[in-house]
């Protein structure tokens, strides 16, 4: 027997309306709402359609027209602007919902299911969508891959529906990447991406490896510990989403080497690996190191190439072409950063055919960029090179790389270096995990809009190839407009938290219609608007707090 709640859900709450001025279309329908019914943007509605089919849509706007022709009519109706004048009767008014069409249930034609894309006619009964309707509209029945729980839809009539993303579109091969943006603190974008990462981890742990960059204090340095702030509501949501309320397992933390050889991290976890960079690790990646140094005449590029080409057997021999002549500088052998910093600038100029002003500049930049204790002449046994380490990641493993306290000029190098190693791993070997999720917060720092640096190009490369080979970016930033166009363009899924009005009107948000943009400006904390490639309109979801421990 159906419960009263079910009966209410089935009850018509209004009817479609298709007047001359605002007729229903293939993408949109309007309906008036019965008095007393509460409704909000992002609620799912079902309108009855022709041939007994039903069209599911999502509310994008609610209008409240009255029969008043103008503001002046209302002014007149209050005795020409007397606020205390009380009209004897209420004006005729209604609530009109504007609904984006998502999907029609279709009818059977021979062996084919035919979806009706014609506009919903006027005067058709409209209901609140039930759980099955919402999931149907989200295309759950057409998923190619696994369903990855992505959040919960709360309908204004009390219906709660768990919704998921198709792994084939989130992790490839049909689509890839997710990008989260929104105002810092309010948008909860990191929490959302980590929740989604946990969903992927639980549903596909044997296929997916995770590389996570921690950029804020110790935010992600306890993801293996059980969360301490979880409420019973959170636990209910995990149940509803068919997820375990448990943290990540099999986590390895990589912390940056500090001055004393101790980790340069806030609240380091008990077990970790230190990472550092010897010159022998990254001699071939000087383009990443010098990424933010202007190089209009490609002199740095020449230097980088020569270092990469001349490095042999753990050392670089710099030798002037005029060696043997009088006054010619002696060759130099470089094995570490210090050696490189000490190379005679005249030798460098002659060896690499550089203008005399260039070697001092190289030395200056090198000193500046390798000043961090991360750059060591020789790595100790306890210290690891991330580039090598990341190539050994296995499905089901989670690597957390802490860069929170690293200087902002060095952070991009670390990210770029890891990205290049991942790129290499997928190009070179068969041992790469089938899918890899790379979580990068503050993505705008590494791949800014219009950026052409080696690091930006490296990240764009991952974004571009990710769909086919399974390297999937989970990127987050405050302003989507500030990240590289190609990253936005390659993202199949977007999560948007509360966003300011100036930002949301930029072209990076062109995939949202005007109504949704307006609604995004009013999202609450913990509310996310989710847009996926296969959906005709974005939806709003809530999600539980991460199941891992967050250090405040």
């Amino acid at each position, binding site marked *: 027997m159906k419960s009263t709640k079910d009966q209410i859900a089935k009850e018509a709450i209004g009817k479609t309306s298709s007047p001359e001025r605002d007729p229903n279309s293939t993408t949109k329908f309007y309906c008036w709402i019965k008095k007393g019914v509460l409704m909000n943007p992002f609620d799912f509605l079902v309108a009855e359609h022709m041939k007994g089919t039903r069209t599911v849509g999502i509310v994008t706007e609610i209008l409240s027209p009255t*029969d*008043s*022709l103008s503001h002046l*009519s*209302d002014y*007149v109706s209050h005795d020409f602007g007397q606020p205390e004048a*009380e009209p004897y*009767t*209420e004006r005729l008014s209604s609530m009109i919902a504007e609904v984006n069409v998502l999907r029609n249930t279709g009818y059977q034609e021979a062996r084919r299911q035919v979806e009706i894309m014609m506009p919903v006619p006027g005067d058709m009964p409209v209901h609140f969508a039930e759980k099955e309707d919402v999931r149907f509209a989200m295309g759950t029945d057409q998923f190619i891959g696994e369903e990855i729980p992505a959040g919960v839809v709360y309908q204004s009539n009390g219906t709660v529906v768990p919704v998921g993303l198709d792994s084939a579109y989130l992790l490839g091969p049909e689509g890839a990447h997710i990008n989260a943006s929104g105002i810092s603190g309010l948008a909860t974008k990191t929490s959302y991406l980590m929740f989604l990462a946990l969903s992927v981890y639980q549903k596909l742990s044997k296929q997916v490896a995770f590389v996570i960059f921690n950029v804020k204090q110790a935010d992600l340095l306890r993801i293996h510990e059980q969360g301490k702030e979880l409420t019973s509501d959170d636990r209910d949501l995990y149940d509803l989403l068919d997820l375990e309320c448990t943290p990540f397992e099999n986590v390895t933390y990589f912390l940056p080497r500090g001055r004393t050889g101790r980790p340069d991290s806030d609240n380091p976890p008990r077990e970790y690996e230190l990472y550092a960079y010897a010159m022998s690790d990254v001699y071939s990646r000087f383009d990443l190191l010098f990424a933010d140094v202007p190089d209009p005449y490609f002199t740095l590029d020449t230097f980088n190439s020569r270092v990469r080409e001349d490095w042999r057997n753990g050392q670089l021999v710099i030798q002037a072409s005029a060696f043997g002549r009088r006054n010619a500088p002696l060759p130099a052998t470089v094995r570490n950063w210090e050696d490189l910093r000490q190379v005679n600038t005249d030798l460098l100029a002659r060896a690499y055919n550089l203008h005399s002003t260039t070697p001092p500049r190289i030395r200056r930049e090198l000193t500046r960029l390798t000043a961090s204790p991360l750059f060591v002449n020789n790595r100790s046994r306890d210290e690891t090179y991330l580039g090598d380490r990341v190539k050994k990641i296995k499905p089901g493993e989670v690597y957390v790389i802490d860069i929170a306290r690293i200087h902002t000029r060095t952070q991009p190098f670390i990210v770029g270096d890891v990205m290049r190693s991942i790129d290499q791993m997928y190009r070179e070997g068969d041992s790469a995990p089938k899918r890899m999720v790379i979580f990068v917060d503050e993505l705008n720092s590494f791949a800014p809009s219009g950026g052409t640096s080696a690091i930006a190009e490296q990240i764009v490369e991952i974004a571009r190839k990710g769909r086919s080979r399974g390297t999937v970016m989970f990127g987050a930033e405050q302003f989507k407009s500030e990240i590289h166009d190609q990253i936005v363009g390659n993202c199949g899924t977007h999560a948007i938290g509360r966003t300011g009005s100036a930002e949301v009107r930029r072209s990076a948000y062109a995939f949202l219609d005007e109504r949704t943009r307006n609604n995004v400006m009013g999202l609450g904390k913990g509310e996310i608007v989710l847009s996926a490639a296969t959906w005709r309109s974005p939806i709003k979801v809530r999600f539980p707090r991460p199941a891992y421990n967050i250090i405040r």
Partner: protein
Amino acid sequence: MSQAKKSIAGISHEERLKFFLDGSIRTKYVGEYIESNMSFPVIVSEIAVAVVQKAERSLMPIQLEKKIIFVFPHKDSGLISDSTYDRLQDMQSGLQSSNSFSQIRFLSRTEVKGDARTSLLGKVRSIMHEMEHEVAQKSPRLSGQWLVMDGAIRKQEFIGLENTIGLAKSFSRKPFISINGSPMTLSAYMRNIKEGERSAVLRKESPTDQVSKDIIFWYERIRTFPPMEPLGGIVKIDMKAPDGNVKQETVELIDEISSEIYDMRLPSIYPWPRWPSYVYPIRIAEMYMSSTFLGEFVLRQIGEEMKNEIETTPSKKA
């Protein structure tokens, strides 16, 4: 008789005026039906009558009656042949027996005056008044609840309706008002009636028809701003006359009704035509009816079909 004008704004009153009735007609002229040396205009009319009820501060439509009416000339008018008249009568019987939404009516011998189209339209209006009366009788009023009909009370049968007033936005400007023996034009008299005041309660002198004998009426100015012509913002109220002279309790009732009508000037329907004299519930009844009317093309099509039917259907008598 209450011979003085009176300020009625702010007089406390019961909420009596609960039901608001209006009728409306849409007519399409389809063309002339020509038969040898005779012809008559074919018109099709859609008539609607609606009642809106006020509950608390909300208005809710509660009754709607609709008909499609074809009116044809009387058989002795010289406009219609006997055979066509017979065919139409057959069709009329058929429609009546099937309890159809459409009806065929004929002018009576006395209703044919001058231009045929004017007479036909007059008949349609008369049918609307019949419908208004029927609907008013059926309105589910409780004791003490009054009905407001849009327009003047013109028909005798309306006099029989209890607790009913007619509220007219448009009225004749011809009457002379005579109080204490000094006649003045309506405009001159109303010049002294300010917003929120009613006129004296009046009765037609030497009435020639029964309706005029049976009603009393008064005018009320519900708006003066923005500046408008002298009779702008005025409504005329008709009410069944009490037996004998108007007593004090009737005057009190009139004052309360006037006060309630004054309150009803808000919300206004500005800037619709004649907005200063409108009360909102009547506007809602009009809107309700308008929303149910057939489209112009559909109504014309119905008329065309009737015209074709007249041409092609043989009379049973023939």
